[in-house]
């Protein structure tokens, strides 16, 4: 009998390959730095910084083609925990998280932590309550798992339909944020950049499916993390003589606290369910950095945290990533790595915000009106900041564009322009990771659960892969159209996406493993009620019918989903013996992967038949 193994087939040279990639990227940055010093045109530097990494990602994706379904949909189940964790950490909030949360930290300080804590807690819950069991089951999509767990094609189709909505919102958010950074970098229209990003996804994914996406995505994630870390680490060395920006901004924060108090920045008390996150565009520094609950009320803080937790833990575009690990133990470890990387990324975003506020503090302390330093004039020229009001200079004199705070740091610190371009290319890389995760998940669901949703047997091998490729390319084009036609704030799209995904899938997925009594009626009621209530709450919140922000839809969506699932299950007959046996098997890490065994038996049956 074949069994799962912790260490099977993992390529021992992965570290070398990605070391070469990281060195190539560093080489490109250094080369462009030399070109900048030699006076090469800005246009060449900007296009070089955008296209160089894009070509590397595409080359990695194209170099790992495959014709085997297990490779195409699960990268051969041999992606080590560290790489899976890195991919999950960057894909969770993608470029939207990195860029917008940095801006939110800068503008409202402490209150942005509700999103960070929610993300971290999401990994913890996923690692403990969901992912190991999903890995033991081994299907390539969440709807396939639910359909098989409840022995119901209706559950499979309903969950596939419900999954497409939040995943498309997330895809549109990522494409918009990536296009914002790419368009700024090379001075082209955002619409063109949206299609360039969608095309980059198609090129990197088409030949090898999830295998290509995993390895090119790992390279993109490494580039995104490096582009985030390098400029702020240099600034940390300049300011504190220590290359650990996440841990060394404490004294600056203390100085900032005193300065904000001395210059009369108000202490604001938000209503308990108030959720005033800064929107896309320019906004003033509204409150003191470390004082909590000025923009987000205490109840809204907890609700937003739990909504993000549920959305991350049960997001149908992140969970399938764990089926690529070599085993259940590696799956648990991969979520540990995701927690480490996500924590590092978010603490770096917070550090960037503190350093930027520190630069503004220096201006406010100097208090010289009409004689702003070069870096501030450069930021104004770039359109990142507007200055309002006359003397004396105060914190509220400056309106920062939320999504430009990350790009403002290299300018404020006087670093060469190449570091600014590097930061922008890192945003593009993170957007590709986020967009890739969602677009591939939607494509797989369309092929596995919608086109083939009425059959328990997969399509023939070649047709299956071609259809999946077509679905992924179509999803990328569809996502690009949505991003163009619905120009909403990417952070709102991300939060709505997590609220809908959490409300729809979290109760059903958790109960499907931890409550044997749950049946297909419960699953249908849980999915339907969670989805409907979350979507209606968001619509009501956005049209001001309900005094609740759409991002907090989890406060009603999660209980609705859980209640629907429990009540409908209790009111209908018990699951069959075969379903109960299946649930017992999911709970045990050892033994063969359930999906792989079913496919093996199916092949044997077909061979006997022929």
């Amino acid at each position: 009998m074949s069994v799962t193994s912790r260490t099977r087939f993992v390529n021992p040279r992965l570290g070398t390959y990605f070391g070469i990639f990281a060195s190539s990227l560093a080489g490109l940055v250094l080369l462009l730095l030399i070109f900048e010093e030699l006076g090469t045109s800005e246009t060449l530097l900007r296009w070089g910084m955008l296209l160089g990494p894009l070509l590397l990602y595409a080359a990695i994706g194209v170099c790992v083609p495959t014709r085997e379904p297990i490779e195409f949909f699960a990268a051969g189940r041999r992606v080590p925990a560290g790489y899976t964790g890195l991919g999950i950490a960057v894909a969770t909030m993608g470029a939207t998280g990195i860029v917008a949360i940095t801006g939110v930290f800068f503008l409202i300080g402490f209150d942005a932590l509700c999103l960070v804590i929610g993300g971290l807690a999401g990994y913890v819950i996923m690692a403990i309550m969901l992912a190991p069991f999903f890995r033991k089951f081994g299907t390539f999509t969440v709807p396939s798992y639910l359909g098989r767990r409840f022995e119901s094609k209706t559950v499979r189709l309903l969950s596939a339909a419900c999954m497409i909505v939040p995943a498309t919102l997330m895809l549109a958010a990522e494409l918009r944020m990536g296009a914002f950074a790419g368009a700024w970098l090379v001075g082209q229209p955002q619409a063109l950049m949206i299609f360039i990003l969608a095309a980059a996804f198609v090129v990197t994914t088409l030949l090898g499916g999830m295998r290509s996406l995993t390895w090119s995505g790992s390279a993109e994630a490494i580039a995104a993390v490096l582009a985030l870390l390098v400029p702020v680490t240099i600034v940390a060395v300049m300011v504190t003589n220590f290359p650990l920006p996440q841990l060394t901004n404490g004294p600056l924060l203390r100085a900032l606290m005193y300065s904000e108090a001395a210059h009369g920045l108000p202490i604001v008390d938000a209503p308990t369910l108030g959720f005033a996150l800064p929107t896309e565009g320019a906004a003033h520094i509204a409150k003191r950095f470390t004082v909590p609950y000025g923009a987000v009320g205490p109840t809204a803080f907890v609700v937003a945290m739990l909504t993000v937790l549920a959305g991350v833990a049960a997001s149908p575009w992140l969970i399938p990533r764990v089926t690529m690990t070599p085993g259940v133990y590696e799956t648990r470890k991969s979520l540990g790595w995701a927690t480490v990387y996500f924590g590092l990324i978010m603490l770096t975003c917070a550090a960037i915000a503190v350093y930027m506020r520190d630069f503004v503090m220096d201006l406010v302390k100097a208090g010289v009106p009409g004689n702003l330093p070069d870096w501030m004039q450069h930021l104004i020229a770039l359109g990142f900041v507007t200055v309002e009001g006359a003397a004396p200079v105060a914190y509220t004199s400056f309106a920062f564009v939320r999504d430009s705070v990350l790009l403002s740091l290299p300018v404020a610190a006087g670093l060469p322009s190449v570091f600014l371009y590097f930061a922008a290319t890192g945003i593009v890389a993170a957007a590709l990771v986020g967009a890739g995760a969602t677009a591939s998940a939607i494509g797989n669901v369309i092929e596995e659960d919608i086109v083939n949703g009425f059959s328990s047997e997969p399509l023939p091998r070649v047709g299956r892969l071609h259809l999946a490729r077509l679905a992924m390319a179509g999803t990328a084009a569809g996502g690009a159209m949505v991003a163009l036609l619905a120009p909403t704030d990417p952070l709102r799209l991300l939060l709505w996406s997590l609220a809908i995904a959490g409300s729809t899938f979290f109760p059903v997925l958790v109960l499907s493993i931890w409550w044997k009594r749950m049946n297909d009626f419960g699953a249908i009621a849980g999915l339907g009620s969670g989805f409907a209530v979350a979507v209606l709450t968001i619509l009501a919140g956005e049209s001001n019918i309900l005094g609740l922000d759409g991002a907090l839809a989890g406060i009603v969506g999660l209980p609705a989903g859980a209640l629907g699932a429990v009540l409908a299950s209790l009111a209908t007959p018990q699951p069959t013996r075969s379903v109960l046996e299946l649930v017992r098997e999911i709970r045990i890490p050892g033994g063969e992967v359930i999906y792989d065994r079913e496919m093996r038996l199916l092949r044997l049956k077909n061979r006997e038949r022929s």
Partner: protein
Amino acid sequence: MMERKERKPYWRHTKWQVLASVVPFLVLIIVLPLYADSLNSERFLGFPLGYFLSAHGIAIIAIFTVASFVNRQDAIDHWHGAHEDM
């Protein structure tokens, strides 16, 4: 391979481990930020303590929770013979 009679004790053991990991973690992440303002008057590594615990502290607690769960659950898997083959 796990024996059939071990299934119930294994699942009971797993459930307790999950509760022991999840409940304290959830309590901490909800309670810590609520007390941040009053803790901010103290400092640690130069940071206001409330902010440090809510940002760095919760990240460290999350990593510790997953790491300890991975180790403990792996020990439980081995104890009951439910582990994967090496």
